[in-house]
């Protein structure tokens, strides 16, 4: 995992029901260097949050339905985002609601520009504030990702995706010295984290993926016996997870003693497929 692999520009999600107003804001944020995504409703905004690139900051109009004078669905959106995306900064603005109208809703926003703020005139100020928010979000996200990644790597210090390849990468040198992720990355291997949720696992699993020209080889990090081939990343990973289940089905409290690689796999499967106190 490297910083360069991540989206290089901050991502802002702008929620505004008025198409023309939305376009103006998208253009202003894009000109300021953001990757700007637009949504015209709460539902569309939540779809973007779930499926788009990692959003770093959300900017929303407070009234998202002009047909309802008292509509404050932008506040509802902000509450929903705060409840589901911890630490996601949300900025609000309104050309309808004044300071006193939004007083009770300020807690859900990191910043609010109410009626009278003249959003367009203050767009530079809003963008600067959002950039600050976005950079903090991005930094926190990177740090969290690296902490999780490092923790997983520490749990599985040894990995043998291809001993012969590692020896080729360090001719005449210590094979162990080549046993590192960057060398394998240069050789075309990619590390991928398989989330526990959605895959029926108790804990996430890291796999090495290699494009072999006729599909993808997947090897579980630290478990050379767990490998499979598939036409795509998804199919190769699904096949590896299926293998884990097949092996695990044969491991029970009364199963025969395991030694060496069989013991390593047995312990790994118990750890990954069954909840632990960890």
């Amino acid at each position, binding site marked *: 995992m490297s910083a360069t692999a991540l989206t290089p520009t901050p991502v802002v999600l702008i929620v505004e029901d008025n198409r023309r107003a939305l376009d103006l804001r998208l253009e202003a944020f894009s000109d300021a260097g953001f990757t700007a995504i637009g949504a015209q409703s709460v539902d569309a905004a939540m779809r973007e949050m779930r499926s788009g690139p990692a959003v770093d900051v959300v900017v929303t109009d407070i009234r998202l339905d002009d047909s309802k004078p008292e509509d404050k669905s932008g506040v509802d959106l902000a509450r929903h985002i705060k409840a589901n995306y911890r630490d996601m900064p949300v900025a609000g603005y309104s050309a309808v609601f004044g300071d006193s109208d939004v007083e009770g809703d300020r807690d859900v926003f990191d910043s609010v520009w109410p009626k009278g703020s003249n959003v367009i005139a203050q767009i530079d100020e809003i963008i600067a504030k959002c950039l600050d928010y976005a950079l903090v979000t991005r930094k926190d996200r990177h740090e969290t990702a690296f902490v999780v990644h490092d923790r997983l790597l520490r749990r599985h210090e040894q990995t043998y995706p291809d*001993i012969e390849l590692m020896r080729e990468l360090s001719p005449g040198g210590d094979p162990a010295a080549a046993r590192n992720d960057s060398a394998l990355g240069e050789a075309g291997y990619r590390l991928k984290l398989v989330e526990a949720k959605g895959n029926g696992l108790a804990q996430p699993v890291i796999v090495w993926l290699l494009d072999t020209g006729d599909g993808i*080889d997947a090897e579980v990090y630290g478990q050379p016996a767990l490998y499979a081939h598939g036409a795509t990343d998804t199919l190769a990973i699904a096949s590896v997870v299926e293998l884990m289940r097949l092996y695990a089905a044969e491991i029970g409290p009364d199963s*025969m003693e*395991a*030694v060496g690689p*069989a013991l390593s796999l*047995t312990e790994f499967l118990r750890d990954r497929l069954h909840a632990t106190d960890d």
Partner: protein
Amino acid sequence: MSPADAARIFAKLKVVDKPSTHHVTGWLVVEGRRVLPLHYSRGRKDMHGRVAHLFRKSLHVTPAEYADLVSCPLSREKYLELLRERGILT
């Protein structure tokens, strides 16, 4: 290298296997103890990608020894001897 070759190796090494829809998983069992997890995928065609290479690695043998396993000269007893030499089997 085809799944049929892998099946022959399983038979020769007396791997305790359990076929399923797509995979045949098994364990090399020695004196009542599981030693190595081994598997191959079902199918008629040769193994895809580097799967044949990974299968050989899971057996802990060199390419030459692997060829002997496939073509017969290397017996289960001699194979177990190799594993003992390599510290896999004690």
